[in-house]
């Protein structure tokens, strides 16, 4: 009995030391980002390593914000993220409702196709999509980055919502239908309020995706006043110089909203991820 206890203790020690080691490895880059963001330029690239800035240059954050149109890009990024979330919530839930609670010809076939599109390699779409937007005169507007969100918001979100809606009992809806409620009313006043958790997950995913999108703004926006943070950060890479400390300060500021959101909504974010993997 005692030896078993001892074995267990040893096992736990190994377990926790391995996990702690990995935690340190995972945290060091983040620490390095923040540490660099507070360093004077002379301490950025040093041998041996300068772990902590001496003294911390809080000014870097002011300089970084001044070095590129941070607030403009922050606003642009937020604006796009909000429109994407709104568009996706609205259109994906509408489509998911149709896939789960309405009966129409070709519904199941279309749903299969929808699922299949989740796995289409996007390479094949880049050029024609670009050409479509350019023929529509949408280049250098936010439309290419927003309109797709209002067109169903992507197969994954539709799928996620549809699976949740299926679990809402049909009897609930039938009762309302007998009372003469329209489908839109049932959708907006019965189904949506019951689906708050999954709608929230979809919002967070869309927000993360939109905030991180680099390729879209890179391709579609050529006027710098319309850029987003992800693209704007490149202005720290000048033709001849990269100011690492300011770049890291700006990067920290770009990441900060997401880190805050993560710490507040950690549970629903991780469970949303788990959900996407189990496919249920």
């Amino acid at each position: 009995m005692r030896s078993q206890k001892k074995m267990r203790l040893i096992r736990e020690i190994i377990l926790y030391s391995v996990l702690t080691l990995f935690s340190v490895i995972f945290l060091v880059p983040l620490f390095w980002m923040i540490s660099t963001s507070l360093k004077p330029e002379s301490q950025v690239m040093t041998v041996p390593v300068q772990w902590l800035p001496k003294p911390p240059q809080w000014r870097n954050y002011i300089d970084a914000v001044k070095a590129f149109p941070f607030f403009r890009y922050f606003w642009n990024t937020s604006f796009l993220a909000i429109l994407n979330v709104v568009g996706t919530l609205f259109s994906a839930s509408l489509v998911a409702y149709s896939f789960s609670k309405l009966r129409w010809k070709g519904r199941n076939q279309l749903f299969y196709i929808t699922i299949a599109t989740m796995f289409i390699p996007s390479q094949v779409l880049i050029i024609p999509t670009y050409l479509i937007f350019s023929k529509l005169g949408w280049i250098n507007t936010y439309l290419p980055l927003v309109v797709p969100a209002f067109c169903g918001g992507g197969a994954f979100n539709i799928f996620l919502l549809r699976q949740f809606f299926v679990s809402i009992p049909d009897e609930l809806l039938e009762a309302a239908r007998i009372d003469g409620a329209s489908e839109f009313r049932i959708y907006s006043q019965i189904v949506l309020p019951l689906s708050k958790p999954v709608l929230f997950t979809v919002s967070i995913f869309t927000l993360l995706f939109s905030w991180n999108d680099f390729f879209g703004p890179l391709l579609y926006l050529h006027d710098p006043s319309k850029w987003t943070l992800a693209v704007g950060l490149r202005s720290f890479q000048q033709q001849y110089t990269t100011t690492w400390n300011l770049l890291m300060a700006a990067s920290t500021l770009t990441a900060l909203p997401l880190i805050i959101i993560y710490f507040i909504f950690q549970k629903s974010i991780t469970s949303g991820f788990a959900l996407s993997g189990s496919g249920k």
Partner: protein
Amino acid sequence: MKLARSFLIALFILVLTTISFAAPVVIKFWHVYDAGIAKQTIDQVVTDFNKSHEGKIRVEALGISFWDYWDKLRISIAAGQEPDVFVNDLGDVIMRASSGILLDLAPYLKKAGTDVDKTFFKAPLDMCRWKGGIYALPFETDVRLLFYNKDLFVKAGLDPNRPPKTWNELWQYADKITKKNAQGDYDVLGFNPLYAQSYFWMYVWGNGGDFIDEKGNLVVNSSIVVKSLTEWKQMVDRLGLDKLQKFNATYPLGLNDAFINGKLGMVIQNNTFFSQLRDYAPNLNYGVVQIPYPVKPVSWSNGFSIEASSRSRNKDAAAEFIIYLTSKTPSYLFAKNVSSLVGNREAAMSPDLMSNELWKLSVQTLDISRFRPFVLEYPLWYEDLQKTVETVLYGKSTPQKALDDLQKMIETQIQKYRLTH
């Protein structure tokens, strides 16, 4: 009543027409001068132009960071949304001219009474000519020069007033300057053939070689190119490719530049490099000379052209702005403020500019300097040449074989072009 109404309509039409007559034509102009003195100068030039064309033409200028500019411009052209006037690469004007996207400026220059041969340096201007037309004007050009650190020369026991003239001397001097640290990495390098603006094609030219044969065909596997690449590889191998690359990664260009930080004895750089030296290392004791040569003196030039879109709705105004921008006064202002070699010869030859030694050297070097030959069927051939050089340096192929392969590639690209045009 009726009279009153028709009077009102007439008045309305009158107001409308006056507004539309008074509203100036708007010209969009994109450039790469997004910061510092270059931006200020361009802004001033544009403001001056707008003032003198009040009510007629208004230029809206937009500076975009050098890294993003090229992709943004190309994408906007592909989308049919390019600005009326834009800065572009002087090296491949003909590529765009042949696609029909550029406005031929020749008629406008004639109307304005500009004698282009007198106004611009010949070589940069020639890069803008295609089928009898002039599809761009050279705004900026440049030359490559050798910058050397006089203090490092003295430390190595060399005469700081006797810079190397030939490639042999360059290596003799370099070896004296080079210092290794305890790990065997380079602490100080005399010269690094893979750093900054040192390009293989310049070495080929210096060896008396050429990439265009007597028939005007692009040939990269002639014996002189193969010989040059063999020598190039020997130079790199002697110093160690690994070690040179580590050196390059340690000293990325800019503030951490090796020459600026006194870690490199000699460097081949653009003529505008001195402004970085002035800003980042005001106390560095350096000299500038023409690039040493194995056989004959040579330098490489490229630059920025100003072009107008053939799809512009206001071609007259666009052409007028380009002609103004590249005329003597704005060019002189740009040359003086930014210290960049402008394509306008009259501006560049101004006595007060020529009184500066470095400026004079740059202008003189333009006489021996060359542009990369432009090949319409395969405009980016030199990028593939660079890749081929890399392949050889990494020992993945021999000079002869790698260049033969490239030659095959060139021939198929040309064949493809002919099949599709």
